[in-house]
């Protein structure tokens, strides 16, 4: 079945049912093309195990880190809510009744991590404060109508969950017109309905109040249009006595934004309290601490890899989620490409696995650079034994792995120690964060660095760079370029390279040329590209096509003379057209009406 057609763009392929049922297990793709004797099955299992552990560790970490924030948020909600409850006639309270309690949650610019925070926040609030927690995103609420509709549908959705599906009527409501009045009456309804019944188990915590408040989370406060926000706040403050609302603003930038978005008349209707989430840098430190600076996980990153991951974090997105993704990719690549990663597991298990190593794997060990260095240092008869006797080799590996393990447990201990010493020194000569110190130590002998000076000699034996350790390849992932390639790609530079220097990809001697030049036998698109670099804003197609023809004709082999020159010219023109349309597709040029038969350049680089 073809996948090209002039009448449609989607092609569905459904294999017949029987075939489909036997879906290929994931590990088969891992094992494909791998030597059976290199323990690929075991390696994949180990990968899965370690990744699961790391993942749950980070999740747990996130929870712990959020705990403080959530606790204070919940406390705030409870406190402000008790205001609603006291039906006091006191004047101050009356004023307060008009104010919507609002928590401004400063979350930082790492928007990709926010979702996770909000998800656990919603959960925490539902367990502790009120079943009615709704979150809205700006993209769903272009105007107040959608805002209210979305709010209503989510609220009724909440209560459908709670009140054993009596949905049919509520679904109809979805379509109907929504207003604050209808929301208030819905709220009245729902609280009256539930009140007489005894609270169910799920309610126990929140049932301390007769009518629980409605918490509305605006996930990305900055993106909401001012009008929508203002209208909603004014309206809901009018209905506050019958619709007890509490707002939570998710803010990525700074709290000033509230006052920039809302005029004084509106912001005075809010009773705002600020909450600051943990800074993402601290978060990163904790994640590193728990996942890498520990012997709990056998897997380690080399200095370059760690540097790339932290750089992506610091320079691109501040996203913990992306950092973890990078870590996952490193882990996968390590187990995928390093046959000996089968020994990258906890020590007792690794020792057990050594006994089952195949001949092939023993060869792999002998080929490790670190192991070869180690062998060279041994006495000659031991060298022979290591290189010929499998049993002897395996015993030696046992002790080497033990040493590696001991090296790590001491390493991290001493590293933390050194960090404690130096992190409070003025100007932070060895960095303020432990990860900086760690990077330095991974890279070189720390005592060689100018900043260090022999102050802490005792550490010398323990902070050796990992490359000095035999078998370090088993646990260290060092292919930094793979990570950079797959996580932080630069497609435009790749395009430029391919167009400007085809020899980089096509290793043909005819394409070799000195810097900045291009041989005339290069692919058509490269020649057209090179020529267009010589033009300013607009390019005359006639000139361009003739210049192209000049180059291509010169390059053409003259034995192709059997076709007439007219036909040859036509073909060259066709090639030019193809090259130009391809450059258009790539976004280097576009048609323009400014001048007849001209195209406009869209880029300025590459000269």
């Amino acid at each position, binding site marked *: 079945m073809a996948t090209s057609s002039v009448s449609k763009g989607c092609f569905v392929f459904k294999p017949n049912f029987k075939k489909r049922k036997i879906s290929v297990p994931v590990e088969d793709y891992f094992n494909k093309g791998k030597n059976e004797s290199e323990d690929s099955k075991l390696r994949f299992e180990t990968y899965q195990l370690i990744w699961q552990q790391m993942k749950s560790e980070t999740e747990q970490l996130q929870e712990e880190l959020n705990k403080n924030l959530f606790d204070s948020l919940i406390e705030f909600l409870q406190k402000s809510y008790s205001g609603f409850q006291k039906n006091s006639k006191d004047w101050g309270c009356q004023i307060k009744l008009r104010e919507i309690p609002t928590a401004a949650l400063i979350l930082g610019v790492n928007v990709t991590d926010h979702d996770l925070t909000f998800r656990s926040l919603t959960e925490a609030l539902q367990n502790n404060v009120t079943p009615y927690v709704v979150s809205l995103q700006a993209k769903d609420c272009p105007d107040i109508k959608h805002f209210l509709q979305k709010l209503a549908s989510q609220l009724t959705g909440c209560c459908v969950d709670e009140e054993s599906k009596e949905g049919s009527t509520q679904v109809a409501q979805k379509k109907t017109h929504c207003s604050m009045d209808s929301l208030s009456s819905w709220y009245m309804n729902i609280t009256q309905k539930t009140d007489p019944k005894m609270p169910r188990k799920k309610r126990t915590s929140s049932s301390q109040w007769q009518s629980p408040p409605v918490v509305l989370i605006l996930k990305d406060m900055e993106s909401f249009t001012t009008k929508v926000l203002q209208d909603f706040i004014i309206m809901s403050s009018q209905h506050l006595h019958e619709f007890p609302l509490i707002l939570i603003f998710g803010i990525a930038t700074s709290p000033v934004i509230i006052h920039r978005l809302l005029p004084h008349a509106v912001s005075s209707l809010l009773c705002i309290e600020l909450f600051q989430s943990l800074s993402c840098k601290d978060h990163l430190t904790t994640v590193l601490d728990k996942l890498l600076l520990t012997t709990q996980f056998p897997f380690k990153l080399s200095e370059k890899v760690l540097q790339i991951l932290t750089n992506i974090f610091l320079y691109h997105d501040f996203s913990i989620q992306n950092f973890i993704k990078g870590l996952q990719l490193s882990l996968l690549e390590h187990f995928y490409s390093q046959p000996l990663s089968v020994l990258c597991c906890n020590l007792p298990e690794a020792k057990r696995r050594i006994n089952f190593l195949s001949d092939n794997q023993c060869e792999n060990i002998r080929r490790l650079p670190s192991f070869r260095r180690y062998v060279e240092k041994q006495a000659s008869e031991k060298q022979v034994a290591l290189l010929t006797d499998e049993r002897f080799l395996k015993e030696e590996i046992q002790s080497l792995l033990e040493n590696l393990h001991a090296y790590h447990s001491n390493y991290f201990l001493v590293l933390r120690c050194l960090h404690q010493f130096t992190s409070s020194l003025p100007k932070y000569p060895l960095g303020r964060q432990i990860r900086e110190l760690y990077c330095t130590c991974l890279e070189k002998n720390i005592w060689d660095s100018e900043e260090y000076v022999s102050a802490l000699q005792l550490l010398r034996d323990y902070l050796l760079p990992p490359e000095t350790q035999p078998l370090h390849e088993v646990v260290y992932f060092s292919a930094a370029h793979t990570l950079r390639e797959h996580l932080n790609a630069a497609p435009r530079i790749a395009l430029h390279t391919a167009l400007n220097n085809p020899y980089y990809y096509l290793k043909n001697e005819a394409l070799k040329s000195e810097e900045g030049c291009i041989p005339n036998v290069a692919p058509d698109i490269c020649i057209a590209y090179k020529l267009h670099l010589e033009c300013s804003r607009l390019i005359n197609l006639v*000139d361009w096509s003739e210049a192209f023809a000049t180059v291509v004709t010169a390059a053409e082999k003259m034995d192709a003379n059997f076709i007439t020159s007219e036909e040859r010219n036509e073909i060259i023109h066709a090639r030019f057209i193809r090259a130009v349309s391809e450059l258009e597709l790539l976004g280097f040029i576009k048609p323009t009406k400014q001048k007849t038969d001209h195209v406009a350049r869209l880029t300025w680089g590459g000269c």
Partner: protein
Amino acid sequence: MMSKLELKEDKMLEVQFVGDDDVLNHILDREGGAKLKKERAQLLVNTKKIIKKPEYDLEEDGQEVLKDQNYVEVLGRDIQESLKNGSAADGGNKVYSFQNRKHSEKMAKLASELAKTPRKNVSLSLKNDPEIMINIPQCSKGHSASDKVQLKNSDKSEFLSTAPSGLRKRLIVPRSHSDSESEYSASNSEDDDGVAQEYEEDTDEVILNQKIPSQNRAISAPVCKETPSKKMKRDKTSDLVEEYFEAHSSSKVLTSDRTLQKLKRAKLDQQTLRNLLSKVSPSFSAELKQLNQQYEQLFHKWMLQLRLGFNIVLYGLGSKRDLLERFRTTVLQDSIHVVINGFFPGISVKSILNSITEEVLDHMGTFRSVLDQLDWIVNKFKEDSSLELFLLIHNLDSQMLRGDKSQQIIGQLSSLRNIYLMASIDHLNAPLMWDHAKQSLYNWLWYETTTYSPYTEETSYENSLLVKQSGSLPLSSLTHVLRSLTPNARGIFRLLIKYQLDNQDNPSYIGFSFQDFYQQCREAFLVNSDLTLRAQLTEFRDHKLIRTKKGTDGVEYLLIPVDSGTLNDFLEKEEEES
């Protein structure tokens, strides 16, 4: 073996942590031992050193942020390690730079330089093509090298003024103010923006001023006139700032004024183009095959990574369609998958979602909105974890899919655990489609797959530059639809066509007003009430044969959204048949 430690508990280090203050006291107090004294001295020295060094004089956070230099270094490292990764080959400063002034003859100059580039076959080519050799020495400033190219192809110049009739038919338009000699205006007939008009007058003026018989000379002359002074200026100040403003200040475009029409070359249609290109023998096929083989070895790894929750995006020069197609036929045969041609001009997120709901999930109902449909799909896939779907999108960055909404929806689909997305991008700014939020939905792994394959399919739909819009598709659909209509309806439509063709040269024509149209139809006995006409128009509109538009005066105007060439062809065909 450096470390003599063994894994026995007693030999392991034990460190007790002491509070910061205690440590500081310990260091700074006199009571420390000899070793500590030494340590203290050195620490002090160290601090002094630091104070002296200006680059360490940063704010407290300064240390935290690595220097840009370091960063670039780290990212640019290991160039040799990865052969395929073009990203590392060139630094960013080459690719991202300012616009600067270029002279129009530069391209031709480069062309002749490239033409003479010493190659193995160069002597041969020079022998057979003496013109090129002659060109080179002449290629000094002040002369448009394109002239010489023209000389070389002198056999063509005699045809210069006789544009192919097919082209003339479309392009040449009677105009009161343009003299018959100037062909420039012709192709501008459709541009009703002022720039073109203004420009056109310029050219006329130039021709008058120069009064040189050879048109080519006349055209290149203004360029020559301006170059020397500009060049001098630039020689004096090779200042980047100067250049920048120079490039940006002048709105005047200094390019030669020749048009394709003067060249013998007609716009080719898609079919001819294909035929011509099929005669080109591919070069470097061995190297290209090798490249492709490298990528094919990754197929299983891609599958693994897709199944583990990543999505894969392919980038790099050359069509990736064949590669993805091979991927599909090698590893996806036994799984449900949808191939989406992003470059297909009629593609939309709606159609993608429709093929998922209707063909993959066999759902026959309709949805109120795209978002509803998305929700439904998401729920379906979350409920049934045994469901698995591979999406293969060629050109995720195409015109039709690059919008924010489309990307958001595709991103949401791809973030599902049991939907796997494999996509290709080509546009150089494609990554700008994705903000952090979308990137995290997509969870991309990037793979560079430079193939150098021609974008045959991808460019075949778009009405690309220099390719004649054959109009065969709209023409055949016109004929088909009209054939199914009543004779009266056909008459009505023909009336509209004729009126539109009569007005094709009127730039302010916005359509046939409904009232006038009704009047004419009545006079031709085609309708008897405006209700029947309206019913007929609705049918036309449903077939997308006409478009209606309310004018500023509130009157309804009718327009056929097909170019006049096609309409002419259609009328001719109709007459032939009847």
